[in-house]
């Protein structure tokens, strides 16, 4: 394994691992604040039990998110020192602001998690709000750094060094708004549908109490609203990519030849060597319309991109299809649930089973979406400015650290899933009964 491949693989593993917790860190506080707010409003105990349960899940996922995020801050330099030597002083302003947001989140999380008995109920609920807001803001701010890598602005290059740097550069990148919107929504969607799956399973197993029903309702209120908004933000993103990153759009859509009135290719396996897509469904002229707003518009194909500047079509296209498919499935699930609730049939086993099956789809969409963003930008680390191969570290030990970190994250992932399962099966009891304790302990 050469150093570049290993460095890309390590970055991928670290980012993918962190994304789970970053998303939960944005989504869970919102659910928890809603539940506690409902408790304050109605005085019904099961809302408080829910808030407490979700706070525990937040505590575990936030801690892992914080340490894996620290790892990423280091890895930016460890794996891509030449990128950081060049861009650290530009994307740094986004990270500096994100630092404050993250700080606020960590401080108020401490207050919230350990303050149930020390703060008045109202004050306690209020400490939850900065967690939800700053969690969302730190995501939005850190995405500015990535947006700048997709669409770099606000500097000039003289003798290979950035000069005339505008400190607002990451926030001036025109990609920022739609990327931040798209990724924030995806975090809420992923969290909400994952949580919904847990309570759908509980309801299927006959725990048809207010606790499970309310949990499902809160999760799917957040999930349905965000899932319905997501295609709009996706459309904005696609139009932006079409204008600024034609190579990425062509790879996403497996669009090989520049032409007018281009069909939208759904599914299929692209063959980059022959420029064909097998097993795909084609809708005439739709890609032209979606990318440019005109059914007869010309869309740049990969043939007009220099051969050494083309991203991997197979990965980008398939990941994009999976993301869009998962997104639409979740939209349908969210709509189905609220329709069923409106008709007072939300307990239908078919719906609950569908929600259970659909619960990982939000995370699938989140992960594949980032694969589209990052693989679709290759071979550039900063689009049009610096190639990934020119950013990589000269240190030869990267394959070792790649395998080391992969094993570490795998082990932590396994431990975490078993811990969250233990939490999830604890039901609405504040503490598990001694009997379950013993069973779990022996197992």
């Amino acid at each position, binding site marked *: 394994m050469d150093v570049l491949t290993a460095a890309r693989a390590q970055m991928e593993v670290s980012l993918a691992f962190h994304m789970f917790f970053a998303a939960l860190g944005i989504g869970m506080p919102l659910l928890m604040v809603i539940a506690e707010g409902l408790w304050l409003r109605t005085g019904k105990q099961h809302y408080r039990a829910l808030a407490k349960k979700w706070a525990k899940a937040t505590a575990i996922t936030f801690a892992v998110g914080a340490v894996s995020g620290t790892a990423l801050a280091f890895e930016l*330099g460890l794996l891509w*020192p030449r990128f950081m*030597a060049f861009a650290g002083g530009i994307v740094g*302003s986004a990270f500096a602001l994100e630092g404050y947001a993250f700080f606020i989140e960590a*401080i108020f999380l401490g207050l919230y*998690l350990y303050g149930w008995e020390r703060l008045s109920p109202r004050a306690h609920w209020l400490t939850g709000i900065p967690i939800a807001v700053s969690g969302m803001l730190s995501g939005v701010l850190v995405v500015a750094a990535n947006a700048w890598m997709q669409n770099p602005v606000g500097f000039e290059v003289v003798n290979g060094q950035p000069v005339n740097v505008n400190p*607002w550069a990451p926030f001036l990148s025109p990609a920022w708004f739609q990327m931040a919107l798209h990724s924030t929504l995806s975090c809420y969607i992923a969290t909400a549908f994952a949580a919904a799956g847990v309570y759908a399973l509980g309801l299927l197993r006959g725990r048809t109490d207010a606790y499970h029903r309310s949990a499902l309702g809160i999760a799917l209120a957040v999930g349905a609203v965000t899932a319905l908004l997501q295609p709009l933000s996706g459309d904005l993103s696609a139009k932006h990519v079409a204008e600024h990153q034609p190579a990425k759009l062509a790879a996403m859509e497996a669009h090989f030849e520049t032409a007018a009135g281009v069909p939208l290719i759904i599914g299929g396996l692209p063959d980059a060597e022959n420029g064909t897509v097998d097993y795909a469904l084609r809708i005439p002229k739709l890609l032209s319309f979606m990318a440019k707003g005109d059914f007869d518009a010309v869309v740049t194909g990969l043939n007009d991109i220099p051969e050494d500047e083309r991203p991997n079509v197979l990965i980008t296209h398939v990941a994009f299809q999976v993301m869009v498919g998962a997104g639409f499935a979740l939209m349908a699930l969210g709509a189905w649930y609220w329709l069923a609730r409106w008709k007072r049939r939300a307990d239908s086993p078919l719906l609950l089973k569908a929600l259970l099956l659909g619960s990982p789809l939000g995370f699938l969409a989140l992960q594949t979406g980032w694969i589209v963003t990052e693989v679709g930008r290759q071979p550039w680390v900063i689009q049009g400015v610096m190639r990934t191969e020119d950013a990589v570290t000269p240190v030869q030990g990267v394959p070792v650290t790649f395998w080391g970190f992969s094993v570490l994250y795998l082990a932590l992932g396994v431990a975490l899933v078993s811990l969250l399962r*233990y939490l999830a099966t604890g039901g609405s009891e504040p503490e598990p009964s001694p*009997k379950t304790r013993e069973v779990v*302990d022996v197992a």
Partner: protein
Amino acid sequence: MSPELMLAGVALLALIAYAVLAGADFGGGVWDAFARGPRRAQQREAIAQAMGPVWEANHVWLIFVIVLLFSGFPRAYAALSVALFAPFHLVLLGIILRGAAFVFRAYSPQSARTLGPGRMGRRWGAVFGAASVITPVLLGMCLGAVSAGHVRVAEGAVRIEGTAPWLTPLAWALGLFALAVCAYLAAVYLANETQGELREDFRRRALAAGTVVVALSVLVLPLLYLEAPHLWEGLLNVRAAPVLALGVLAALLSGWALLVRRLRLARLATVAQVVCLLLGWGVAQYPYLIYPDVTIQNAAATDAVLRFVLWTLPFGLALLLPSLWLLFRVFKGEHLGWRDEGV
């Protein structure tokens, strides 16, 4: 004052905050690993209670230092990342395992028989303790590595001269010194936050750790003279020497205060001691970020970016400081709960 110097100063202050706050959390883990005697379980309980609400906020200081370093001094950050590739990865391993193990243990199933941590919890507890011991040693080694002149940087390329910079005798000594300081800080804080026999346990541990700190500083001094003469001279010059002298006085005061059980004074003096030590180190190291090729001036980002980051500080701190004050007042203050205060 030039913006790059101001930013370097802010980064040093953030590093000091990290040492004083998060250092004690690592130290808590050390005492968890070495919990002994009849009150072993209570000691661990007290440590977990003291750390629980604050350790994540304390950890953010490190992220803050890193962000200031790479936004203000990107070339220095890149050079450090190449030169310290292995120890930084090990530090990350330690940080990840420490944080994850701490929460995993806290939320693991309890054992019904002993009403203490279950089997999984005990395993994560062991990981937590081990990672808490190893990480400060590595961080201290990294600090030693930038001072000894083994990392040469020319035209953006990094070259290591002689021994790996983080494995020199000086780096090892500083690593152990950092560990002892963390253990000392934690024991002094814990003695303040506990009562009765538990308090005595931590007071005795503080005295032991303080003795080790003194012994190790006696070991570090000749190594500094031999391996990092520029730092040695820097420490003795008129700017750094008074700060260090204050640090030594604070160290003596904290030891005395522990002996006569004036614990609040001991806490204050211990914090002053660590602040002076790091401040003195920073002043002595000036103007180098990595001796001898990378300085605050030649590694700095463009003026506009430095000014931007500096200008965010008053706004950021206006949000942070009241929040931190609230956090520490609620969990480290004297009051017990909102019910007791009649809120």
